[in-house]
């Protein structure tokens, strides 16, 4: 009777989510139409920094279909200040952050007036009739200038453009030696400055929000990654009782950190719905999305690396300027801090110091973008390892091997004090080199150099790790983050043996419904098809910390596993009672409780029905198997991998084309290989896009000139190569499934692999750096300069 069921974990299940997405039966927020619903449109500042001298809305009020027009002054008392949950230092400076500007605007694209009208077209028409008189103020755009003595100020009331300075020093922390001594004593010191250009997450679904104020609760549908955090923050920002707010994230079309936010538009829609007493909808245009949804990256990174002539690194000093933009959004100040612990990457550096200066400018606020701090760190360390290798004339992979943590040295406590539980960098690298034909490509590179081929070949390496599974609550507390990092789940056993899994994770493309079904199917021994995964609604999924930081599987799914184990525990009590045996006499497998050594058994489904009937339960037992669990990780997880990129650079035009890309990722145990490969592919595309294509550019007045998808150039299918992906598997020792997380790996690893390949292709021409994105113009100029462009030795 106990036929072995093939495990679901590890199977490339096709996704449950797809059925509605491929047929157009979707539930995007913008699809919603509620009875009596009206539409709002937002007038946005054309000035990057100005005092609002006057706003004349009188003409707009008389336009057809217009129901309400309001400005920041009208809601100044009720709108509160948008939340920042991460005060990284006790003295961090933060300006008030109104959703709708009241007397000054601080970046181009900031909301200044709102029209509510019968239709979206009429609302847009009325925007054109609003007249704003801006009195221009000095515009602060350049971070380095912003921190100089006598600089013009983004927020004059703060008296400085510096929001905070945050330091980690291994000598002070007792986790390592003194970096200044290491630099002073070094046989070789290499200094570089790298620029992380400003990027835009550019999720495909523009943000949209619908608010219905007509029920006992005010219900908000929003294209958000964080329905639970959003509800809490709406309550705290607006003073609305938390239990009077329900937030629903229906189908959400990508986020990449860009929807990890409490947005001005959500607050404005909430207040507009309260003013109107009827449902309102706001959906941004792509231009608004590019201007006003938060941006990412934008750092200047100065690195100093100290080493011995044999390549042993003896210390690393990192000094950052990080652009906050005009305001501190939800986790803006903490993004660089997430990178602070990753500059040492997979290496055994004995001394380390990190100093980050967070700077205000009159630009769109920055915040999390896929990887959030860790791509920046990985880029910088992997770039400077190549530069150190060149300086020492050591093969770049050999330099890495000399410094990385050997597989037998795990668990390993790094110079930052993090304990990496597991990993095998040798294995991933060996596999990647084999798939890549590393030695063959090196030989070809040499041939091309010797023949003076106009198209040169470069090999780029990125051996990376990341900290995933955000996050142990105690660690977050020690970093002054405003909340914990746990996740919640509950499992409801229905009388017919079907199961509802409620998760506090909030999927927006990751495939939770499929992966969680696989995990629960294995745990409870029930069919994959008999499981429904419920998420993204504070009513049906009341507790959660949502989805970001590659945390869903490593934290969210662990809560699911814990809840499933509680279900099994209760069911076992019932099964023992029904089978008239002791619990210890039962074994559970494949969904069956069997009396050891006999054929006597009952299924978990039959147990669920017996519990529902409740006719014959153990004394004192509640008639339910439903269980809830909250999981707080004890440690991060540390996925790693080796990414290798071969780039051809046309030295006559500067054009870069990626010839091959191989990545071998070690993400621990794999629940669904199909989903994992998809996550890696998409991550690679975004990392490569940073290396080659994307940049948010402002003109001298502070206007974003890349405010359309014609100008902010997301890569298309023809801009990307075929990726060769493979995996090694070193299980995480810190969670029950041995998983590590995969959502950000591709993005974190790929950017330096590509830029290292570009530089490697033309290093013999005197190029030591190419600033990102490595456009043909920049590459050509770097070759012409025969020297560095953007890197200061």
């Amino acid at each position, binding site marked *: 009777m106990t036929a072995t069921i093939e495990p679901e974990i590890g199977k490339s299940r096709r996704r449950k989510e797809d059925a509605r997405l*491929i*047929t157009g039966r979707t539930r995007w927020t913008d699809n919603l139409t509620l009875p009596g619903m009206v539409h709002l449109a937002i007038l946005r500042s054309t000035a990057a920094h100005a005092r609002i001298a006057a706003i004349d809305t009188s003409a707009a009020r008389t336009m057809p279909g217009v129901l309400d027009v309001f400005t920041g002054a009208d809601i100044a008392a009720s709108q509160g200040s948008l939340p920042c949950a991460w005060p990284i230092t006790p003295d961090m400076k933060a300006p008030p952050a109104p959703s709708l500007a009241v007397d000054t605007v601080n970046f181009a694209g900031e909301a200044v007036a709102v029209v509510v009208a019968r239709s979206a077209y009429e609302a847009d028409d009325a925007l054109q009739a609003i007249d704003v008189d801006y009195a221009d103020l000095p515009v602060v755009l350049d971070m380095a200038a912003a921190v100089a003595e006598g600089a013009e100020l983004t927020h004059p009331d703060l008296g400085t453009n510096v929001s905070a300075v945050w330091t980690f020093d291994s000598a002070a922390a007792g986790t390592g030696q003194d970096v200044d001594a290491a630099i002073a004593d070094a046989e070789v010191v290499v200094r570089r400055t790298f620029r992380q250009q400003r990027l835009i997450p550019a999720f495909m679904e523009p943000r949209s929000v619908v608010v219905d104020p007509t029920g006992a609760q005010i219900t908000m549908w929003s294209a958000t990654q964080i329905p639970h955090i959003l509800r809490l923050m709406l309550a705290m920002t607006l003073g609305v009782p938390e239990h009077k707010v329900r937030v629903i994230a229906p189908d959400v079309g*990508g986020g990449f950190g860009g929807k990890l936010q409490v947005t001005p538009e959500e607050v404005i829609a909430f207040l507009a719905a309260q003013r109107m007493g009827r449902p309102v909808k706001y959906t941004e245009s*792509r231009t608004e999305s590019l201007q006003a949804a938060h941006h990412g990256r934008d750092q200047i990174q100065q690195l100093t690396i100290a080493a011995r002539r044999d390549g042993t690194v003896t210390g690393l000093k990192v000094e950052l300027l990080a652009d906050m933009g005009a305001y501190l959004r939800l986790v803006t100040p903490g993004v660089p801090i997430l990178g602070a612990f990753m500059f040492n990457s997979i290496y055994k550096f004995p001394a380390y110091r990190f100093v980050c200066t967070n700077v205000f400018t009159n630009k769109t606020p920055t915040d999390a973008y896929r990887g959030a701090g860790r791509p920046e760190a990985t880029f910088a360390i992997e770039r400077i390892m190549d530069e150190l290798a060149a300086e020492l004339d050591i093969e770049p992979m050999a330099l890495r091997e000399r410094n990385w943590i050997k597989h037998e040295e795990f668990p390993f406590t790094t110079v930052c004090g993090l304990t990496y539980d597991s990993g095998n960098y040798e294995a991933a690298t060996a596999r990647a080199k084999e798939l890549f034909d590393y030695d063959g490509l090196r030989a070809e590179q040499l041939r091309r150099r010797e023949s003076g081929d106009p198209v040169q070949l470069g090999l780029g390496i990125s051996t990376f790790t990341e900290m995933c599974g955000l996050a142990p609550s105690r660690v977050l507390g020690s970093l002054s983050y405003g909340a914990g990092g746990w996740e919640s789940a509950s499992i409801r056993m229905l009388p017919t043996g079907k199961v509802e899994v409620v998760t506090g994770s909030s999927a927006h493309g990751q495939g939770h419904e499929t992966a969680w079904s696989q995990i629960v199917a294995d745990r409870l021994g029930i069919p994959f098809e008999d499981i429904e995964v419920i998420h993204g609604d504070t009513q049906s999924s009341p507790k959660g910390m949502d989805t970001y930081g590659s945390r869903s599987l490593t934290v969210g799914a662990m809560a699911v596993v814990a809840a499933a184990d509680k279900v099994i525990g209760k069911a076992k009590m019932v099964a023992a009672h029904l089978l008239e045996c002791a619990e210890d006499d039962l074994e559970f497998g494949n969904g069956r409780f069997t009396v050891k050594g006999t054929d006597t058994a009952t299924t978990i489904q039959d147990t669920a029905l017996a519990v529902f009937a409740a006719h014959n339960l153990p004394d004192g037992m509640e008639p339910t198997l439903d269980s809830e669990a909250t999981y707080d990780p004890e440690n991060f997880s540390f996925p790693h991998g080796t990414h290798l990129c071969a780039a051809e650079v046309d030295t006559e035009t500067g054009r870069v084309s990626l010839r091959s890309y191989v990545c071998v990722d070690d993400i621990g145990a794999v629940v669904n290989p199909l989903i994992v490969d998809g996550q890696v592919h998409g991550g690679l595309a975004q990392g490569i896009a940073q290396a080659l294509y994307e940049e948010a550019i402002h003109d001298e007045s502070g206007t974003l000139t890349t405010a359309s998808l014609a100008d902010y150039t*997301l890569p298309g299918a023809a801009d990307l190569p075929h990726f060769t992906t493979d995996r090694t598997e070193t299980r995480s020792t810190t969670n029950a499934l041995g998983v590590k997380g995969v959502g950000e790996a591709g993005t974190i690893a790929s950017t330096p692999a590509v830029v290292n390949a570009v530089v490697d292709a033309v290093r013999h021409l005197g190029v030591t750096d190419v600033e990102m994105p490595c456009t043909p113009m920049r590459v050509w100029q770097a070759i012409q300069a025969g020297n560095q462009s953007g890197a200061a030795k």
Partner: protein
Amino acid sequence: MRITVNVDGTTYTDEVEARLLLVHYLRDRLGKVGTVVGCDTSNCGACTVHLNGHSVKSCSVLAVQADGGEVGTVEGLARDGTLHPVQAAFHDNHALQCGFCTPGMIMQAIDLLADNPDPDERAVRHGMEGNLCRCTGYQNIVAAVRDAARRMSPGAGPAAERLDEQSVTHPVGGE
């Protein structure tokens, strides 16, 4: 202005403003919300539909330009619970994650296969260039389009529009 348009096999007659975009007519007037808007410069292709048998970006077509025409959307592809082979190939090849670009991708892929029933990887990448995806890195989309080409018998490109003749049966749902 008064227009008459056949959308996914049903004929509608409506009074519309001259400036109304086809995509807004589909979404806001007909409730055909399977077709979505991703940008305002016709770069992303999320709004791609078929107008008189050819793919168009419905954010750059006026509803009045569709007067007297036939519009096909992603919602009209599956018939009687059977997916179009391109839909089935997207599912089987995991060619979507968030799925927002997917309606446009599928409609463009059908148009591409009508022109070129057996495209190689390069032809697919270039043929899909006007449709942006932020999740997949395109690799599985390319695989899906080529897989769909294999599923649709040789010379069956134009037949992509005639679903009743398709022999491929694929239930809507999980594996």
